[in-house]
């Protein structure tokens, strides 16, 4: 029982972190059609900026300032880089962000070196929040979950209830008309890209101290963002939310379960020994393949339902 509850909590908190990462990505993709390969690099920038600012001013100022800085960087990238590539089509845009991700990693290494930096959780958020049976649930995780939910609510409210949100939505589907009506569509694009990267930066500020802040952190989360977005459905924020929770729970529970075909078949009375053909395949435990499950899900979704769970278009 304890295991199920704890795994549920862990799965949801992990899923919400994934959502924090994927929300900006989905936003950029749905608004601009750009697959931002460098999104994970902005996440990393957020973590490093958060670390630097928290050493100068403390964690709480960093929480507000770092995402803004990352957003500004993203806006600049859009204005001076992506905009120029926009006219060449979607593939060059994707390749531009691909190259950008390399460059950001290198720049981070120039400034902060190659080793991990000691970005710590602030002392007021350390320690357990509550105890479930015998396992403690850290306060910081709860904080991460809170921020993620607030983020979702804020985005949704902004997009549907504010004027700028309406303009953004209009610019997505009818950029020519929106421009004809006097809205500065290129500026909307810049703000959207900046906003999306700011969200990634926020995820970095929050996640960087819980997990290790080092130059390879971008590469490690990069692929998962794609999975979440594709599974949820390209262009759907709600879909990304559902998908991240789904993947978070799936991975967390899978890690906890040691089921394998050998065990299953054994229960049916079929004996599998190391001599059996493809024993390596049958002896794989669910817990061993858990980190690969998201990719399996990705492939299956793309084969059977390319729209994703809640997507409105096929990309």
């Amino acid at each position, binding site marked *: 029982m304890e295991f199920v509850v704890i795994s549920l909590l862990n799965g949801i908190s992990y899923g919400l972190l994934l959502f924090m990462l994927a929300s900006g990505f989905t936003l950029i993709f749905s608004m601009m059609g750009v697959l931002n390969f460098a999104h994970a690099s902005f996440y990393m920038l957020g973590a490093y900026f958060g670390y630097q600012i928290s050493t100068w001013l403390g964690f709480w100022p960093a929480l507000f300032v770092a995402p803004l800085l990352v957003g500004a960087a993203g806006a600049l990238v859009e204005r001076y880089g992506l905009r120029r590539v926009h006219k060449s089509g979607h593939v060059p845009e994707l390749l531009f962000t691909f190259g950008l991700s390399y460059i950001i990693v290198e720049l981070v290494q120039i400034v902060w070196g190659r080793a991990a930096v000691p970005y710590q959780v602030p002392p007021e958020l350390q320690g357990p929040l509550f105890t479930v049976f015998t396992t403690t649930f850290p306060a910081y995780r709860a904080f991460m979950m809170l921020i993620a939910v607030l983020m979702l609510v804020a985005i949704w409210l902004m997009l549907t209830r504010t004027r700028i949100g309406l303009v953004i939505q209009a610019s997505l589907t009818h950029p020519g008309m929106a421009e004809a009506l006097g809205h500065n569509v290129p500026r909307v694009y810049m703000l959207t890209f900046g906003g999306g990267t700011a969200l990634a930066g926020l995820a970095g500020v929050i996640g960087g101290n819980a997990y290790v802040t080092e130059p390879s952190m971008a590469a490690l989360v990069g*692929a998962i963002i794609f999975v979440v977005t594709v599974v949820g459905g390209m262009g759907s924020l709600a879909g990304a939310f559902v998908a991240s929770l789904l993947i978070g729970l799936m991975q967390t529970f899978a890690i906890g379960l040691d089921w394998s075909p050998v065990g299953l078949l054994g229960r049916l009375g079929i004996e599998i020994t190391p001599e059996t053909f493809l024993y390596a395949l049958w002896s794989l435990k669910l817990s061993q393949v858990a980190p690969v499950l998201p990719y399996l899900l990705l492939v299956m979704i793309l084969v059977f339902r390319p729209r994703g769970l809640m997507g409105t278009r096929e990309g």
Partner: protein
Amino acid sequence: MPATIRFAPYDVGRWFVWATTAVMFAVLPLIFTKGFAITLLSQMGIMIVFALSYNMLFGQGGMLSFGHAVYSGLGAFFAIHALNWAGAGKIWLPVSLVPLVGGVFGALFGVLFGYVTTKKAGTPFAMITLGIGEMVFAASLMFPGFFGGEGGVSGNRVIGDPLLGVSFGPGIEVYYLIAVWCFGCMVAMFAFAQTPLGRISNAVRDNPERAEFIGYSAQRVRFLVLIVAAFFAGISGGLSAINFEIVTAENVSALRSGGVLLATFIGGAMFFFGPVLGAVIFVFFVVALSEYTKAWQFYLGVFFVLMVMYAPGGVASLVLINLRVMKYRLFARLRDPYAGVLLSALVLLVGVAMVVEMSYHLTLGASTGSTLKLFGFGVDSAAPEVWLLASGIVVAGALSFDAMRRYFAREWEAVQADIEEKIRREAGL
């Protein structure tokens, strides 16, 4: 009734070009004889085949794949196992035919994965290849029996008795084997692009709906092209297995897939020889440049981004637009602007390289203190004078480059306008 006259003149240009390439392949290792240079040439040869096979999907078929290393890597694994079996006498397989094994298995996996991936083109295709690539990479670490785990699978290419004195022990013999295979594959892939299937894949790239109207199933075409591309990718994997005598999980990694994408794009996806150029440049950056500087990844990233922004057609397109100018005999007008742009760019590059190298040296705190070797000179990266000098060079380079760029742009526009005029006149308008 007059007999049909068939007039098909010899395409002298094409024959000349291919002959030159063949001669270059044959002669280069005699000029650059060091072991490192030979291995560099071998790696370029392997990458050329890999990049050309990738371009069958990307440039010619319009399919952006993030998992092409799966086919070359799996081909490499099967090739090295075959090599080991041949060495143990279990099967008869001369070393020179090992790449064929790689190709066959690459194609087999092309059939297996291709069926699933080619249902859609565009972004879903890209995503699904990414997913499959990650899965295969993860699987390669989970099944050490076949994939050799972290250490990979090693083999020995010196098996059996030497044929005509060739044992494939020395690097140069391996180079010539790779050169022969590379040239053969280049010819084959070029020929493929001229076949109906090759042509129709271009059509599917440009307008899949229209291709369907004239009766071709877009999915079928993509599937077949993928199988052929996977075959050649498998051959490059087999060549890699012979060259390195080891195949590891890295051969199927996302890094490899990303690398071939970079190489193809840098060279130019729209032209047949683009990936060839791109492969040479890419291997140079990754293998040779990294010998001289720790910042090679930075340079590669910046180079790639600049190409995407300013020359999305790749190096090949740059070469070709200049050749067009030469064809219309207007190149003389561009000589001065070019000189100006290139010189100022060189100055800017030197300055930027100084700053980058010194920054890297300082923050990575190398073991030799603050001095580093820059273009052969010992330079103290902690001294402010040096930084001042470097910044000065950067500023000077940037300013002059900007001025030259404008000058060049003006002249270029004028030349292009003249060319348009000439074309119109030639067309008789």
